[in-house]
């Protein structure tokens, strides 16, 4: 099956600034694809080139088999767009916006009232846009992006500026979009968001794509380290732990080192090693040696760590 989005070697400059450079990727039908990177990395420019709002200086883009520059109106009929930091008329009512948007498309649109219901905006249907909260505005923009029953939905920094609760609610909505069989293309600088939502992500920095894969594969590829933190009063524990294969470092903090009268003091160990098997090996070692533990947790690397490793800095820097 042909990819829904094909981007090949696009480049876009603003004056002497290169916003996007030699970016290529494909998005397949029915997936949630995320373009992740810090602010100013070229996410929005890339997305707006695909939506037909900007013309790349070089390279080619095909969306649903259409050219976003030449077939822009045909394309707009079939896609839904949520723009970063968009606004509506201050005093437009929620239902009026939905009604207006529904009138803009040739094809049959979906029932606006039902959409408002699904997005939890029914009580706000007569409210002016300017009176809505950040989360309500975003939900309205999602409604406007879905009103034409699009095959492909673009979401640009959807949850930026929202509180964690509103953010989670929006994530559920996005998963709901995919469940309706639509393809979702989103940008975010929140690694947690990408990890929880996206089937595949492309990491972009300074206008270039560094790597593309599923979040789990990216983590496995770039950050194979696993960490186990446990606490035990077993005196021989450290010795035993050293025999575990592929352990790279073992750090122990004797939490009761200053209370010498307590011979049963707990020691906390941080065991670092490579590969998925590390955790199993540690558990195996504990049970084989009958080591009693009072604390046990694993620390897994995430996309944040991948980003740090690939770029040498945190995404928030």
């Amino acid at each position: 099956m042909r990819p829904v989005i094909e981007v090949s070697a696009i480049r876009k400059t603003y004056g002497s600034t290169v916003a996007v450079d030699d970016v290529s990727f494909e998005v397949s039908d029915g997936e949630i694809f995320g373009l992740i990177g810090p602010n100013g990395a070229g996410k929005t420019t890339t997305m707006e080139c695909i939506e037909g709002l900007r013309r790349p200086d070089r390279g080619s883009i095909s969306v649903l088999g259409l050219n976003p520059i030449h077939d822009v109106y045909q394309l707009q009929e079939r896609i839904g767009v949520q723009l970063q930091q968009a606004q509506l008329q201050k005093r437009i009512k929620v239902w009026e916006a939905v009604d207006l948007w529904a009138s803009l498309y040739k094809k049959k649109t979906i029932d606006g009232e039902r959409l408002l219901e699904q997005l939890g905006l029914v009580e706000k249907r007569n409210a002016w846009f300017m009176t809505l909260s950040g989360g309500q505005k975003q939900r309205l923009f999602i409604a406007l992006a879905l009103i034409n029953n699009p095959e492909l939905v673009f979401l640009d920094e959807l949850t930026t500026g929202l509180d964690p609760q509103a953010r989670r609610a929006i994530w559920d909505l996005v998963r709901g979009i995919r469940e309706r069989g639509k393809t979702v293309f989103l940008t975010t600088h929140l690694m947690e968001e990408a990890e929880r939502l996206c089937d595949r992500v492309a990491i972009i920095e300074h206008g270039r794509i560094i790597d593309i894969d599923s979040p789990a594969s990216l983590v496995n590829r770039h950050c194979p380290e696993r960490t186990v933190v446990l606490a035990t009063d077993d005196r021989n524990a450290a010795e035993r732990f050293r025999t575990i294969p592929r352990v790279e470092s073992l750090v122990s903090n004797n939490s009761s080192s200053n209370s010498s009268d307590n011979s049963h003091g707990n020691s906390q160990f941080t065991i670092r090693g490579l590969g998925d098997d590390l955790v199993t090996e540690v558990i195996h070692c504990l049970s084989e040696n009958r080591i009693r533990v009072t604390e046990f947790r694993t620390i897994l690397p995430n996309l944040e760590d991948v980003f740090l490793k690939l770029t040498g800095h945190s995404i928030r820097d």
Partner: protein
Amino acid sequence: MLRGLWKLTWIEIKIFLREPLGALGTIGIPVLVFLGAGRMLGRTAAPASPAASNFIGVGLPVLASVLIAIGAVLSLVTIISIYREGGILKRLRATPLRPQTILTAHVVVKLLLSAATLVLLVLAGKRYYPVGIHAPLLGFTVALLISTWSILSIGFLIASIVPTARFAQPIGAVIMYPMLAVSGLFAPVASLPPVGQAVAKVLPLTYAVSLLEGIWKGDSWWAHTHDVVALVVAFLLCTALSARVFRWE
């Protein structure tokens, strides 16, 4: 191509009316100027003075009408620049909506508003000026709509290039009001110095004033063909120019 036009126009009218200050200013100022100036002149100038009665009879209604048109232009410039700055234009652009449709909707709103203001003026005039006025109101309305429509295209042009909404209103005013001075409204164009005459000839407001005055006085449309042609040319020129330089964001 005009899909969404009527819905957008209707919503824009409602939104306009929801801003009491804007509505009051746009509709109220021409009416107030009309009444205020009329009162002042009517009191100071003796009824015998033909110049004063000519101004009350012809100049004042035309001045008020031109103010309507300029008010419409300034309001268009402001709205478009606010919409651009707020990302509203960009959001509308990411739909099958055509740019022409957005501009057309705003022009229709402004024209309807101008017509409404004119009606108010006529009613106010009937109430406060006992002078019998036998102007062809229907023809005059059409002339005002043509003038407004043409001058609005200057508004597009200003709206296309003003950097921010904060500058829109002052820049618009600085461009529009001096046009009034040489428009022939206060002194006949022929009596202006040569430079003034030359400037007046290229400004559409001059033709709008000539058309409005002529129609008010009962001239036939044929006598003002050149005014209408000039206004249409100005419209085409400004629209073409603004289409080239228009910025959505």
